[in-house]
């Protein structure tokens, strides 16, 4: 079967390796039989062919001659058929006959206008981000280098971490237990009331939490522990914890709920008690989501301003032990509300705050996404 122009079988390729825009159409067959091939049987075992020149299909396509191995005809068993094909690469010419398919549906100009408007909207957050970063950088940088408060920023970072950590110490056990109750034990009616109530708690403005600390928590603690002056850090972390519990609850409950029912039922069907099922199946499976809940709560705590400024900060008249005042990052910024001028060191504190809260948040965010994908 030697034919002029065919150098021999140089490459065989199967369809998956071809490029998406490439399509091969059979132009003509030398053998009459080709026309009797049913379409399905054209390429039962791939094509063996050569290009006229080189191996790669030249731009714009090329004419290819080759064999179909194992082609079956109506008249007999497998045989090899010789055909000529034209390979098209890239855009093809529109079909000459009915061009209906390529007639666009008229949609008016709205489509394009809407697209541009949406794109414009999408630019805003990007600009906002760039603005935020550049302003913090510009404000923090002075001729003397990075602007710093007199004692440096270390105490503020320490104070922030301390209060937030202490608050989580209260909030996480309570929040997790509450989430377990809501996800596993609560009757539907209780759940229907408790969840919104907790959400309400999350919606209370933080300045009101600060007020609760100053007006109620501190006097109550002073009454309970007479003679001791209440450290600010305790009062601040307590109200902060109350504020964080709903965050922990709602995220942890979501994590618990994404554990598939089949897994719970599998455990129960093996004779496990509810408690065992929780401990061995549900909690491990929900662990990433629960850690994420804690991280996101921590991010919220770190960025909280009102409680940090008003309760933990240096306000002498509040009935808290003034010696225990704590510097915090947000407290430095909040000082502007107490009449302090806005200085470069505030920008430095802001930059550190941004880095800290984004670091914590992105760990949590990634975990949430992972938890979501896992389920």
């Amino acid at each position, binding site marked *: 079967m030697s034919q002029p122009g065919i150098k021999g079988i140089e490459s065989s390729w199967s369809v998956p390796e071809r490029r998406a825009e490439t399509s091969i159409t059979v132009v003509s067959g030398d053998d009459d039989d080709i026309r009797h091939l049913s379409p399905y049987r054209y390429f039962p075992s791939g094509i063996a062919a050569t290009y006229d020149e080189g191996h790669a299909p030249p731009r714009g396509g090329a004419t290819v001659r080759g064999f179909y191995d194992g082609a079956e005809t109506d008249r007999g068993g497998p045989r090899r058929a010789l055909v000529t094909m034209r390979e098209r690469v890239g855009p093809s010419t529109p079909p000459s006959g009915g061009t209906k398919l390529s007639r666009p549906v008229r949609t008016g100009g709205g489509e394009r206008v809407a697209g541009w408007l949406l794109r414009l909207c999408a630019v805003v957050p990007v600009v906002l981000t760039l603005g*935020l970063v550049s302003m913090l950088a510009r404000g923090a940088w002075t001729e003397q280098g990075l602007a710093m408060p007199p004692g440096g920023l270390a105490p503020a970072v320490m104070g922030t971490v301390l209060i937030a950590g202490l608050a989580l110490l209260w909030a996480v056990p309570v929040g997790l237990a509450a989430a377990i109750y809501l996800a596993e034990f609560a009757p539907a009616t209780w759940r229907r009331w408790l969840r919104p109530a907790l959400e309400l708690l999350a919606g209370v403005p933080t*300045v009101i939490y600060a007020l609760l600390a100053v007006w109620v928590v501190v006097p109550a603690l002073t009454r309970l522990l007479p003679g001791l002056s209440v450290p600010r850090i305790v009062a601040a972390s307590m109200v902060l914890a109350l504020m964080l519990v709903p965050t922990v609850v709602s995220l942890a409950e979501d994590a618990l709920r994404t554990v598939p029912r089949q897994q719970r039922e599998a455990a129960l069907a093996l004779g496990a008690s509810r408690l065992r099922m929780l401990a061995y199946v549900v909690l491990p499976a929900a662990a990433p989501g629960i850690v994420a809940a804690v991280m996101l709560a921590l991010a919220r705590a770190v960025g909280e301003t009102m409680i940090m400024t008003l309760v933990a900060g240096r306000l002498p008249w509040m009935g808290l032990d003034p010696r225990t005042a704590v510097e915090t990052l947000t407290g430095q910024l909040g000082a502007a509300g107490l009449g302090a001028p806005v200085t470069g060191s505030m920008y430095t504190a802001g930059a550190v705050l941004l880095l800290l809260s984004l670091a914590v948040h992105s760990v949590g965010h990634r975990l949430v996404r992972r938890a979501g994908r896992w389920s």
Partner: protein
Amino acid sequence: MTRGESRRSTGLGVPPAQQRRGRLFALVCMVAAIFPVVLGAALLGAAIESGAGFGAHGGLGKLSSVDAGSLLGSALGSLWLVSMALAIALPIGVGVALHLEGPRSRMRSLLALNIANLAAVPSVLFGLVGLELFVRALRLGHGMLAAAFTLALVVLPIVAVAARAALRAVPDELREGGYALGATPWQVTRQVVLPAALPGMLSGAILAIARAFGEAAPLLLVAGFAATSSPSVSGDPRQILPLHVFQVLAEPDGPSRADAAMSVAVLLGTLLVLAGWAMRLRHRHERRRDG
């Protein structure tokens, strides 16, 4: 766990020790769920009582000394500020969410990440941006307008995230139904996805409103507490409800406690109304979907 427990009991009853442990655990969890709610409610009640002094002074307590005019002014100021901020943030936020709904691309996933991060930026920092951008660069001064723009920055990512969540909650079958009928992506979005996502978006918007009402931190920087200059014509943001409360706490000789208590009560009342509204919307939507 000891071996004794894991051995199968012969009867069908659960071993009593195990049963007791399970109940105790459930009880502890229940208390944990109820405790924060009760504590929060009690503290709020005690705070309002301590400010208004119903018990000690009888009748209206110290409330008779409240300056009703200034309270009304504060409430209206808050309302005005929040309306302006939302009027800016809502359309842009929804637009961002709609843009993110488009065909997936690397740009879009970066943008989505950017917005998730913005939503996590502590709100005080937007105060710094507002101070630099609106108060100083655009010379809006320490007025309502600068405060409104700043507040819009704070709620923009929140609105975008909530709107996006609502859009993604629309089942793909509906989208496919639209495409299979030959609709363009924009037609599917506008006529199929948006109507279906509307209740979710609305409750997201309500939560954003609630958030904006109580937000104080970024306004500390733009409201001009340090500035002695009189506020601009658009109103004085220092008078809005949350900042009013802040001032009571910050200065011993600031506004009276009774005034602050009333501000707190108004804020909480607004929150309750908004939350109730959002909840009803959600319920109605769920019922409709199930029915």
